[in-house]
């Protein structure tokens, strides 16, 4: 009897700890002086209330201080600022630095994990890492080798460490994690190695597993409730994670979860997208391949999916659905709604009701997009919610060993993981985009565990009949599904944006420029060339009463593959090759943090 009583006490104690953890972190996130989470806030808006730097004075911005990370590979994500300390991370080997903002960025502690270098080649597209997270006095680092480690934020000492996946079968990590309530929610990479994607919630206190939901498989694996989990308003029914696959193909089905996560505390739901089905050869995996390419809304406590929406059934182009889900409150048709806006790799900007998963808007956010004529928005239609595929650009319909040419966007998508920002003041989304098209030829491949499982040949080139560049930075109206303005860029914009109450929007470019533009007009107000190309995300914080803007530079990632050598249009012949200047003419490798401020 006594033991039972103790148990009950412990349980209720656990409950209150959970609530405290959430409130403490929420308070930090709500304080614009801090940058307590990679995404700026749980809604993934990447919006700051700070306005000391504004559109009238941003032109006078100067470099306040810099820091070299000592690592050469691609630097994604951004630092965190918690109180007087800035936490900076690096790509593999995933070093963490704690820098003292009271003492000119002096290194308070440094943590460098020991990882098996054999994880390096199993990572698709460079050894990037999208940053640290914070909660309950701990810094969370999800390493390349899928080790999730909790470090004491004060000392860097390891509090606990767990292994989320197995690099020997191609499971790796590039993403950050999201701390929610008493849990840390964690994804997995490896879609090009036939990994079956999953999302796992670890208990923040000790690293034990609370739940794991797979992207495909039996309902017990996917945590999908056949009667209550809905797809466009209708229950999905039993075995939805296996019945659109042939045989056991779902076991190597892809749908990895390497993007960003958002969270709505009122609904207790966490939102994310799943990646491409494996292989890239669609003929080898007939069916819709559910739930790859899907927006998931899962209950934080149980992991059970409330609703799902598959954007690209039976992917034929590698249009991973992992990009961020930005949560906003906006009025549509006279009613304020809880919305979710998502800019997919497939080139469509989606707006959904995030309570129910109802599809409200699906429009192209790059006019170059040609693989689809649009999404069927008629709830009465048999193809409701499905994109209409243009036969000419269908690598499935054209078949194996046939080169489908001129598909827009390319496999890297009209937008990849680099996160957009949203300003509640302008009600506009600020979106870094790719303006790149491709030829795609699928062919048969065999699966070997831990080996690439791709099965297509791709050639990528700047969108034809356009400005000749490979990127745009756009402002998007999510209610209307319309581009408000678009800034052409020579290279893909591979940096995450930041919007502020000062009516300024910041982003970085692959040449290495940090740019500031007017949030209303897009007019360029400031640019500065940092030491290397930017694939990191812009962040801002306030320290000692002064606002700072910080960016990691260090070119690499997906962008480092094609753009290091320059892209060519095979249809243009030899003469045009020189027209697409290589990124290496503009920048070189090297991780560096640059922090900006207005002069005193």
């Amino acid at each position, binding site marked *: 009897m006594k033991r039972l009583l103790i148990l009950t006490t412990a349980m209720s104690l656990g409950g209150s700890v959970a609530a405290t953890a959430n409130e403490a972190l929420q308070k930090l996130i709500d304080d614009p002086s801090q940058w307590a989470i990679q995404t700026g806030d749980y809604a993934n808006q990447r919006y700051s209330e700070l306005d000391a730097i504004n559109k009238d004075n941003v032109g006078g911005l100067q470099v306040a201080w810099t820091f070299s990370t000592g690592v*050469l*590979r*691609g630097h994604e994500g951004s630092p965190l600022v918690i109180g007087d300390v800035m936490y900076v991370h690096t790509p*593999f*080997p995933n070093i963490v630095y704690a820098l003292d903002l009271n003492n000119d960025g002096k290194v308070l502690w440094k943590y460098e994990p020991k990882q098996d*270098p*054999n994880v*390096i*080649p*199993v990572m*698709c*597209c*460079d*050894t990037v890492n999208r940053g640290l997270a914070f909660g309950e006095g701990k810094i969370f680092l999800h390493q390349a080798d899928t080790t999730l480690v909790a470090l004491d934020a004060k000392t860097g000492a390891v509090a606990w460490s767990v292994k989320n996946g197995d690099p020997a079968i191609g499971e790796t990590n590039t993403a950050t994690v999201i701390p929610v309530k008493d849990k840390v929610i964690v994804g997995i990479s490896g879609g*090009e190695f036939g990994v079956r994607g999953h999302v796992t919630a670890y208990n923040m206190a000790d690293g034990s597993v609370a739940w794991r939901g797979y992207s495909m498989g039996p309902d017990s694996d996917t945590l999908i409730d056949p009667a209550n989990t809905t797809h466009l308003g209708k229950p999905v029914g039993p075995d939805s994670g296996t019945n659109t696959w042939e045989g056991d193909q779902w076991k190597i089905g892809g749908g990895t979860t390497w993007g960003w996560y958002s969270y709505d505390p009122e609904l207790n739901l966490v939102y994310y997208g799943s990646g491409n089905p494996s292989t*890239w050869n669609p003929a080898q995996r007939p069916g819709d391949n559910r739930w790859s390419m899907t927006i998931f809304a899962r209950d934080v406590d149980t992991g059970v999916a409330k609703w799902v929406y598959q954007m690209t059934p039976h992917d034929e182009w590698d249009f991973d659905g992992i990009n961020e889900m930005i949560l906003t409150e906006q009025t549509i048709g006279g009613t304020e709604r809880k919305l979710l806006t998502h800019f997919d790799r497939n080139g469509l900007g989606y707006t959904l009701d995030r309570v129910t998963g109802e599809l409200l808007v699906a429009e192209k956010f790059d006019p170059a997009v040609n693989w689809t004529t649009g999404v069927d928005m008629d709830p009465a239609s048999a193809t409701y919610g499905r994109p209409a595929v243009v036969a000419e650009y269908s690598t499935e319909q054209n078949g194996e060993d046939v*080169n489908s040419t001129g598909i827009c966007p390319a496999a890297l998508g009209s937008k990849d993981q680099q996160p957009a920002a949203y300003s509640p003041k302008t009600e506009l989304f600020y979106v870094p985009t790719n303006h790149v098209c491709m*030829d795609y*030829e699928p*062919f*048969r*491949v*065999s699966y*070997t565990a831990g*080996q*690439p*499982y*791709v*099965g*297509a*040949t*791709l*050639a*990528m080139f700047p969108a034809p009949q356009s400005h000749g560049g490979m990127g745009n930075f756009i402002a998007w109206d999510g209610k209307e599904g319309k581009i408000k303005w678009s800034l052409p860029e020579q290279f893909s914009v591979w940096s995450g944006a930041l919007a502020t109450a000062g009516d300024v929007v910041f982003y970085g470019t692959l040449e290495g420029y940090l740019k500031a533009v007017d949030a209303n007009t897009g007019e360029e107000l400031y640019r500065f060339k940092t030491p290397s190309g930017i694939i990191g995300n812009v962040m801002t914080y306030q320290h000692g009463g002064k606002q700072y803007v910080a960016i990691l530079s260090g*070119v*690499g990632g997906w962008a*480092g*593959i*094609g753009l*290091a*050598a*320059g*892209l*060519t*249009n*095979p249809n243009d012949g*030899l003469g045009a*090759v020189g027209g697409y200047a290589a990124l290496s003419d503009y920048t070189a*490798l090297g991780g560096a943090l640059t922090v900006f401020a207005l002069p005193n």
Partner: protein
Amino acid sequence: MNPDRTACRHRRLQPRLQPRLRRAALALAALGATATAAPAQEAAADNLAAADNLTAITREEGRWFTAEGVPTYKIEADGTLDWATYSGFRRYHSECHVCHGPEGEGSSYAPALKESAVAMDYYDFIGVVADGRTKVNAAQTSVMPSFGTNLNVMCYLDDIYTYLKARGTDAVPRGRPAKREEKPEEMRTAEAACLGT
């Protein structure tokens, strides 16, 4: 030609050679016997042979080989590319390009293989692909995995190698090769046997 050197070359090739390569090496030995005997000319010819790891001399089972029995590309006068090298273009862009960049041009973190294929000895090149290679030190973290068990790579390794050599010499421009021959039937058979399909 120095018979000792021919024998030496033979010893080096034989244990690792597939039957068709061994035949090519034997053909080479026969060719060597008829070569000029003048010492100066002999040295010049040897240098040329050493430098020429490219010229297609013999064809067996649909694939072209150099005088030394090393796989190579062949471009006809009208620009038609041999099937194997075209196949290498496809396989390279499936298996290799996410690290080594489009068309063997290299990336921000992996070397340009179009240069490696020309600079490296064929057997060393094959060895690195099969066994992998690790260069992790203060200056770099470069790891080539072992592809020895990956049929999507190993069954097409000679195709990929000849494609990269063709790129390294600019015999094939960037982008998709414009003209290619039809897939030879014997290569179709060999492919199926290798993949076990």
